[in-house]
């Protein structure tokens, strides 16, 4: 494995980690506020579909982005209505949204575009263009540093840079701002927030708005990356993001490393479809299953104790 291959794998890992990172941060905000968000998968799918459809119809991915974010936001608010306003079970509401997204996207897609549930292929302005950072061509000629800058750091789409920027921003909001303090408090002990005279409901909705927007970005990114919407294209990324969230112990910087790890596994699986160990050939299915295997390992609790926000999963009922 030469240096350039490693750079290329890392580059691909970063590209694949982007939607996971955005989704993971979405989950981080809602779960930190005490709303379990198993519906990330559904939001991702809904956003990808609406982004794909809008971009295909208008020819602009930016309009697609607006549509994707709007769709994800609508799903998020539905989740809020069920689990915050009506105090329903957060898991059931989330699962219902996942089913809703899986079914609706295909049904609407088929009746709209008649392509078996796909949206038409996106090209040109219908996809995000890669940003070549300044001097990347010139720098590429410098050994060692050059290819790393040109291949790995430069040449991603705006959303990748936005996702990376969202990490320190999320950290800052959570740990340095009044909003963050209240958000974290409402996920730990909503009655403390309530007795301090702050609305639990508003805070939780605010968290779901942030989650909806972030998921919308992630879904749009998926549609752009695959040049259109395909049935079930989120492929469990919402669940993987949840696993990464647990792995990251509900912290933004850890979320970055956790999702990069998942991205790396996916990149390796894509690049080395089969590896021969002497006479034994590891099958391609195994390589592609790597991220999912890691998910199972994480969810089974093999990575140490992760303590979720204490009030997560509970709707807040005022007590006497």
């Amino acid at each position, binding site marked *: 494995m030469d240096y350039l291959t490693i750079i290329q794998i890392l580059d691909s890992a970063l590209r694949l980690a982007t939607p996971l990172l955005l989704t993971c941060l979405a989950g981080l905000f809602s779960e930190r506020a005490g709303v379990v968000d198993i519906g990330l998968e559904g939001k991702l799918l809904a956003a990808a579909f609406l982004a794909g459809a809008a971009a295909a119809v208008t020819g602009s991915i930016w309009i697609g982005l607006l549509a994707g974010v709007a769709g994800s936001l609508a799903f998020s608010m539905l989740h809020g209505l069920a689990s915050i306003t009506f105090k329903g079970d957060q898991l059931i509401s989330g699962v219902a949204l996942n089913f809703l997204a899986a079914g609706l996207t295909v049904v609407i897609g088929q009746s709209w575009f008649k392509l078996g549930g796909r949206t038409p292929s996106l090209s040109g302005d219908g996809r995000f263009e890669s940003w070549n950072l300044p001097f990347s061509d010139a720098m590429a000629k410098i050994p060692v540093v050059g290819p790393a800058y040109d291949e790995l750091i430069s040449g991603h789409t705006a959303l990748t840079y936005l996702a990376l920027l969202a990490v320190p921003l999320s950290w800052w909001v959570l740990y340095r701002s009044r909003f963050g*303090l*209240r958000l974290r408090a409402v996920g730990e002990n909503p009655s403390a927030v309530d007795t301090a005279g702050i609305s639990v409901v508003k805070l939780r909705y605010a968290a779901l708005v942030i989650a909806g927007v972030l998921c919308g970005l992630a879904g749009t990114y998926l549609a752009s990356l695959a040049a259109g919407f395909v049935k079930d294209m989120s492929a469990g990324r919402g669940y993987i993001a949840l696993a990464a969230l647990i792995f990251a112990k509900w912290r933004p910087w850890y979320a970055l490393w956790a999702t990069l790890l998942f991205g790396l596994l996916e990149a390796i699986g894509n690049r080395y479809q089969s590896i021969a160990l002497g006479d034994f050939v590891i099958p391609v299915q195994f390589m592609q299953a790597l991220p999912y295997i890691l998910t199972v390992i994480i969810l089974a609790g093999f990575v140490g104790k992760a303590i979720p926000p204490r009030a997560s999963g509970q709707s807040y009922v005022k007590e006497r």
Partner: protein
Amino acid sequence: MSVQNEAGRQETVAPTASAPAIELRGISKAFGPVQANKDISISVAKGSIHGIIGENGAGKSTLMSILYGFYKADAGQILINGQEVNITDSQEAIAAGIGMVFQHFKLVENFTVLENVILGAEDGGLLKPSLAKARKLLKQLSDEYELSVDPDALIEDLSVGHQQRVEILKALYRQADILILDEPTGVLTPAEADHLFRILEGLKKEGKTIIMITHKLREIMEITDTVSVMRRGEMTATVKTAETSPEELAELMVGRKVLLRVDKKPATPGAPVIKIENLEVVDEQGVRRVKGIDLTVHQGEILGICGVAGNGQTELLEVLGGYQNGTGKILMNGQEIDLSGKHSNGQTRRARGIAHVPEDRHDEGLILEFQAWENMVFGYHHDPKYQKNALLMDNAGIKAMTQVSMDKFDVRPPNPKLEAKSFSGGNQQKIVLAREIERNPDLLLIGQPTRGVDIGAIEFIHQQIVALRDEGKAILLVSVELDEIMSLSDRIVVMFDGQIMGERLPSETNEGELGLLMAGITDEEKAQ
């Protein structure tokens, strides 16, 4: 200091300096058919400590919730410093200068003290300036009122007493002039309670007004200037503390004469019933909860174990009751019992004559959704006498048995078909007690027998425990209420940090000495 005995009867109240800090006029509140507060009027003078006492369900908490904006009163007025206010949520109560210290603290466990103090009262969108300001103010307050607490400590690392100080600091940080404390000493050691009272005295000197809700008569007598008694939603009396007595207050609370001291003959202990040697308990997290305990309980005696909650008493009861594993040796009537493995469970314990009234009757003593008669046989439902035939249970027989037990133990209402959750705390406890005592055990384990139980029912439960002792049974009593331990026990053992700190006879000790032992301070340390 001016105190109005007949509150709310003043004619006109102008917003002057002499106006009462809080005045309630004709407050009423109903929840469906239940009238929780009926035409309640009180007035509390500025710079005084006012106690509100009453049994569970008397309406104390409802009244305070109205004052703190959790509920809206159906009728009545609230006046703060002589001016009528309309409090519809906590924010407005805070703005009116009311601070509340809840029985269950409203703190974020994994936040620091500072973060908890500023939560909801930040100055601006960024935390840094608020934290700096709070740090300065906290330093000032802690010097002034003995409210010292490390501002950077996490709440979960603090003792309960310190957590309560954080709650008081929260209120003071919001510039509360009126402080309401709901059952503030329920979770404190005697030393911590004394410290709290010193803090309250200090606040009173500074002109703060304090309302304290409690069911402990001793505290009312010790700290308050005036006291109001509530019964069944009504304010039955408001008196000057100096002019009343605990007996009179108890009578006002219950509506009849109550015996505050347990009436019992000296114990006549017989042969040992249970002998515990070097018992160790390690919990699921790998923490040693019980660290090598030796205990013996004899026939015809009540051994009381006192200690602050969480010092291994719970785990001791769980091992003896058969639902927690332990190591060591326990002899029951001279025969060893299994402390782990498949023969260690509640079923086998009961077969050996151990009955258990668990500390948490809602989680472990009853199934709240089940009816009284079903609850009356849980744990004993395998008993052949409750079986009709090989397949079916003798439900009619169980109901008839329950009816008899309910009458005997004065469970109200005596209806076997009522769900357990519809009984009051005291009557739920009587159901559990009846179930366990009626099986004629050799040893009764009883944890927190009167937690959340009314004064009238406490009297009855204590009598039942003493009667069982007089029949020659062994009783192991665990309670965090020192009064209860002192008055019921024939011998007292103090637990701290999973160990036994000492054994005393109730006649030869006092609350001060036990309090020190409960805090882990032994005689030798004190001497140094």
